[in-house]
């Protein structure tokens, strides 16, 4: 009999699906062994959210809810009120768009200690508009009491996990399975809520990025450097609260700003940066790169990044416009 293998819903395609690194899962398991109050609520997506190992090795701390996100959010609130630290793992769309009122009323308003982990950020799914979280940062950012983070890569997952679980209050963690793709830059492994990482220093333009866009920003910066444009790159992994001093000081110094997000340009990182600059009276030339108020479609990540002008050469071109 043939052994059937599950698709993991990443945008990596079949050939690389074997190389999933379980970076998130490892971080979760470490935290679970450190903190007995950590429990998981499953909404039928344990494998593609790397919570299956938790499910299988800590069954008395895993609670299946089925495909019922509104109920899962309510249950998580109830469990948190009893002293547990519930993690709800799903795809970003199903933790934000779908149970939004429940998140607002049962998580954000009571400020309960629930961690919502949303996978398949932005264009990283080939499943199309139903599964692509392109406005999850915006939706979660505007809710009072919520903390919103998106680490740049697996290097940060362990520190990010420790930070969010030690933070008393609700968190939306935008996560991505890493599927063995080659990265050109190793992100430092530190993480602090409200922090950021200045990964590169240049005097001509500063690029603020989060999630997968950090790697692309670093590649673009290398290319720009060969063309005589020196870019600073900042990993803004904590989107709310945002590292306002770093954002404002670097922007004021450089004067030209590019924001990069795997997300709509409305309400996400770009707007968060813009708002800080405006409120602090920092006058800069600024461009926001991301989805320009459009829905995406089901296709490969490389195709989508090109189509929506979020690939390295598009970033290079936009940086040239800003610095021209």
């Amino acid at each position: 009999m043939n052994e059937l293998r599950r698709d993991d819903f990443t945008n990596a395609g079949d050939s690389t699906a074997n190389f999933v690194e379980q970076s998130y899962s490892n971080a979760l398991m470490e935290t679970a062994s450190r903190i007995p109050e950590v429990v998981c609520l499953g909404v039928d997506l344990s494998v593609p959210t790397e919570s299956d190992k938790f499910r299988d090795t800590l069954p008395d701390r895993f609670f299946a809810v089925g495909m019922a996100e509104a109920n899962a959010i309510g249950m998580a609130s109830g469990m948190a009120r009893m002293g547990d630290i519930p993690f709800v793992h799903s795809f970003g769309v199903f933790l934000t768009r779908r149970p939004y009122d429940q998140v607002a009323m049962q998580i954000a308003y009571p400020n309960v200690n629930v961690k919502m982990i949303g996978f398949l950020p932005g264009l990283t799914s080939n499943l199309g508009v139903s599964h692509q979280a392109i406005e999850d940062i915006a939706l979660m950012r505007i809710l009072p009491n919520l903390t919103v983070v998106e680490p740049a890569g697996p290097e940060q997952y362990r520190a990010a996990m420790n930070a969010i679980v030690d933070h008393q209050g609700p968190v939306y963690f935008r996560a991505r399975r890493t599927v063995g793709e080659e990265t050109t830059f190793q992100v430092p492994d530190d993480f602090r809520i409200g922090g950021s990482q200045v990964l590169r220093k240049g005097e001509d333009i500063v690029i603020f990025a989060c999630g997968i866009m950090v790697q692309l920003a670093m590649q673009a910066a290398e290319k720009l450097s060969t063309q005589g444009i020196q870019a600073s790159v900042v990993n803004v992994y904590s989107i709310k609260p945002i590292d306002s001093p770093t954002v404002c000081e670097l922007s004021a110094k450089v004067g030209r700003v590019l924001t990069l997000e795997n997300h709509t340009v409305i309400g996400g990182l770009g707007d968060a940066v813009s708002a800080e600059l405006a409120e602090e009276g920092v006058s800069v030339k600024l461009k926001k790169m991301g989805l320009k108020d459009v829905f995406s479609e089901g296709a490969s990540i490389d195709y989508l990044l090109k189509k929506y002008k979020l690939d390295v050469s598009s970033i290079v071109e936009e940086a040239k416009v800003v610095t021209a």
Partner: protein
Amino acid sequence: MNDRSHTEFLGSKYSENDLAPIAHRIRCDVLEMVATLGRGYLQQGLGATDLLSVLFFEELTLRVEDPGWEDRDRFVLSTAHNSAVFYATLAERGFFSKSELKKYCQDGAPYEVLVSERVGPPVEATCGSLGQGLSVAVGMALSARRKNKHLRVYVLMGDAEMQEGQVWEAAMAAASHALGNLCLIVDVNQMQAEGPMENVINVGPVSDKWKAFGWNTQTVDGHDFGAIRGAFAEARNTKDGPSVILAATTVGKGVGFLEGDRCHNMYVTEEIAAKARVVLNESGS
């Protein structure tokens, strides 16, 4: 070891004869609270008074002197708009002074028209967005069991909330996890914002639905203290799964000329209030 001395009030302290005057005083408070505002949820309040009386004076294990006691039973008011009767019940029970009821819906006071946890325990959650209370209660019951706590979790939900799909998600989860420590009371007053439920959408057959979802299902007269008490006892003895008590109530109960008038958020003129006051005074004497 669980340090609960199971409910100091259960059965012994209050008898059926004792609950009647309690419920009467609560109804009088509800009338005055809503009359002061000139409009509000008077009908539902009068309808749910008897259920809340049994709950807070007999069934729930709570400590008035320590509302946040961690082993208390949890009570979730999913119909958060039915606030006047809830606050009146808490005051009658001694959680706060009756003079606090004068602050109902006053600016700056925690006693909002839709019950908020700003009040603090025993308000356990902020509902109001209908259909959400049961899910929170399912989570509480699950955590309580996981921690080997013997407390029970109760939810009071309106029958129209069954129109919200989330209720059935929660119903499925509670049965699937065999939550014997969970008791749902549905206030079957057959009323919603647009009026009589049958004019809006039919949710029946209600009892069959809950049975089909795997719940221990009982139907009682929501104004018969003995029947309500018996239903809670059976729910407590049902250890292998969740229980639902479908309590048929009459809106406006206790004020003859208001009884059965399914007006969701009604204007209570001074004339209506005066007339209702006379009826309540007569029945209370």
